[in-house]
């Protein structure tokens, strides 16, 4: 029903666009138009679609809760808790849809009938109201088309509002996410001291699990120390950058300065393919190929290497990040003005001297920016770590041991059984917001570094 209604509105909008344009051509024969004919079409289409769709959206948002209030009115005298009421309502809905399998009481049956009835009324009312609005707004718009009112401004204003709503949506969603993280994290910090979280060196949330009642506060104190996770995160990111920065940067320089057109044409897309490989694929590549390989080599040298090592995860993550750095630095190096190169060559500098002394410094802000972007990416990477570096949060600086990161722990916490009010679950939000703060911090630094160098070099 809803689908038909929306389709109808959209089709009508299209029709009114063509109608409006045609009308404009008719007006043109007798008087000067206030805008191009297509604006008349846009004007009609906007007046047709916008009010109807807005009312439709509002209706769809509020209808369920209004129906729910009507249904649950009959139960107010039974002194039920909120959860029980919710359960009843779910049952009523299931019964109405014919998917209910439990005991059907008279009371439930009555409610279900009422529900069906209410839904029917709501639906017809919705259709009626929307049709009324369509007729009203279309006739209003048509009258002003007929009067040959100014068409350009209203259309521009309408478009401005469409864009505004879109960006408002994006901003609101972001704020919503941050706040939901924040509130859950605050609840977590009511159970676990923030000091214990930031400075504790043991991460073992599973031991706080108790079947009933509250967990022992002493246990809580020692289970949520995030230091091993932060250490692991930065350690693995560090290994990744050790792989990605030299290879990425050097290949970027090669591609932009040395490679002939033929090489560049094929090499660049091939490197960029690396960026298109899903991280899960990197993950099992790390876990099944690189991990055992590192272990074998280590064992051959007489070292003790665990099958899941920070080295394997970090190295593969580095490979994943190479295209970021190489592609971005290639772009910024190519953007260095040719006249700087000419100036250097004309002084008798060789290619490598020119790259080292002129091009690299000139491109540095962009390169630093791309590296910091890549660090953010490495810090936020999840799948490779989950699959290749294990889930035990060891506090270690040995790349051959298994270690874990913030993102991997969030995965561990939120898969499988969980209770929402549990500190273990809420700790995921605390980790999430700390990760968010870290990457935000990195990005801010990246931007300010870029800005500083830009002032210096331009």
């Amino acid at each position, binding site marked *: 029903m809803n689908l038909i209604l929306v389709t109808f509105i959209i089709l009508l909008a299209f029709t009114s666009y063509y109608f409006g344009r045609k009308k404009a051509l008719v007006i043109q024969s007798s008087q000067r138009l206030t805008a191009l004919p297509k604006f008349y079409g846009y004007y009609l289409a906007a007046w047709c679609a916008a009010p109807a769709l807005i009312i439709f959206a509002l209706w769809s948002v509020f209808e369920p809760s209004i129906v729910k209030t009507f249904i649950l009115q009959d139960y107010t005298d039974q002194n039920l808790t909120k959860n029980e009421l919710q359960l009843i309502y779910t049952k009523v809905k299931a019964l109405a849809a014919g998917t209910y399998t439990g005991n059907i009481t008279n009371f439930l049956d009555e409610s279900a009938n009422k529900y069906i009835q209410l839904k029917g009324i709501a639906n017809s009312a919705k259709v009626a109201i929307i049709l009324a609005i369509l007729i009203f707004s279309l006739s209003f718009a048509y009258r002003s088309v007929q009067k040959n009112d100014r068409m350009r401004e209203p259309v521009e204003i309408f478009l401005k509002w469409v864009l505004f709503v879109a960006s408002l949506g994006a901003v609101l969603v972001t704020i919503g996410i941050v706040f939901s993280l924040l509130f859950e994290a605050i609840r977590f910090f009511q159970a676990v001291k923030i000091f214990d979280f930031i400075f504790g060196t043991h991460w073992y949330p599973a031991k706080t699990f108790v079947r009933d009642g509250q967990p022992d506060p002493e246990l809580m104190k020692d289970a949520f120390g995030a230091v091993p996770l932060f250490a692991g995160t930065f350690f693995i990111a560090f290994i990744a950058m050790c792989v990605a920065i030299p290879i990425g940067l050097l290949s970027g320089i090669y591609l932009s300065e040395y490679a002939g057109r033929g090489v560049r044409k094929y090499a660049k897309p091939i490197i960029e393919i690396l960026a298109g490989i899903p991280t899960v694929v990197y993950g099992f590549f790390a876990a099944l190929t690189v991990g055992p390989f590192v272990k074998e080599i280590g064992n051959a040298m007489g070292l003790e290497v665990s099958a899941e090592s920070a080295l394997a995860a970090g190295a593969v993550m580095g490979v994943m990040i190479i295209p970021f750095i190489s592609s971005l630095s290639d772009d910024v190096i190519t953007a260095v003005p040719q006249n700087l190169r000419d100036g250097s060559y004309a002084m*008798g500098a060789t290619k490598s001297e020119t790259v080292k002394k002129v091009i690299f410094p000139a491109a540095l802000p962009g390169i630093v920016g791309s590296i910091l972007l890549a660090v953010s990416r490495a810090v936020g990477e999840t799948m490779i770590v989950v699959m290749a570096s294990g889930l035990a949060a060891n506090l270690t600086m040995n790349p051959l041991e298994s270690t874990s990161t913030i993102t991997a722990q969030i995965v561990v916490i939120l898969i499988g059984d969980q209770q929402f009010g549990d500190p273990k679950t809420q700790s995921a939000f605390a980790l999430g917001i700390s990760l968010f703060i870290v990457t935000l911090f990195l990005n801010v630094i990246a931007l300010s570094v870029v800005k500083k160098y830009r002032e210096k070099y331009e």
Partner: protein
Amino acid sequence: MSKIKAENLNVYYGSKQALFDVSIDIAEKEVTALIGPSGCGKSTFLRCLNRMNDVIEICRVEGSIKMDNLELNSRKLDVVRLRENVGMVFQKPNPFPKTIYENVAYGPTIHGIAQSKEEMDQIVEKSLKKAALWNEVKDRLDEIGTGLSGGQQQRLCIARAISVSPEVILMDEPCSALDPIATAQIEELIDDLKKEVTIVIVTHSMSQAARVSQKTGFFHLGKLIEFGPTDKIFKNPDNQQTQDYITGRFG
């Protein structure tokens, strides 16, 4: 005395020929101006003299250019040495995004000319003085070269070019991005420099060519139409096309 002698020079960009059989004899310690309408090949010719065309992949140079009997258009030529001897100043000032000092010290560093910090300081000071920039920047040598005004930047580029004491300086429309005052300063500078170096300057301004040069060559459609003493070219050219161009009838 002849410094540079080009014979039957042909230059191609891909399949398009940019220079046709250009033969020219550039005298030592004189200013030679190259004039002509846009796209006539005068910049292309200039860039042959320090092999800057090497940078352009599709460019091909045929013929002979001799500088003091050294064949420049040869695969065996040491381009780094050549460019140490033949400096270049470009149309748009292009100081490096480095300090003023580093800009001037760039060439001497690359060619290992200065043995000590003191010597380098001297070279930088001498070059900036010769470029008539020293008094304006002596207190801020560690500021970024790109922060100077356009005319100062161009003089900085000239200082950079003369820092390695080249025998020849090529100038590719060095004043086209500058205001009249800065232009006058540069022209004065060119006049000073010609006591020590051979200068080849490409310019769109005929009055500039008349003011600064001793010899003038007129290029048109990739051919050197006429070459001779500046006075003669401007007052009494042999060729009708030169006459038309000088008097502003085309170009």
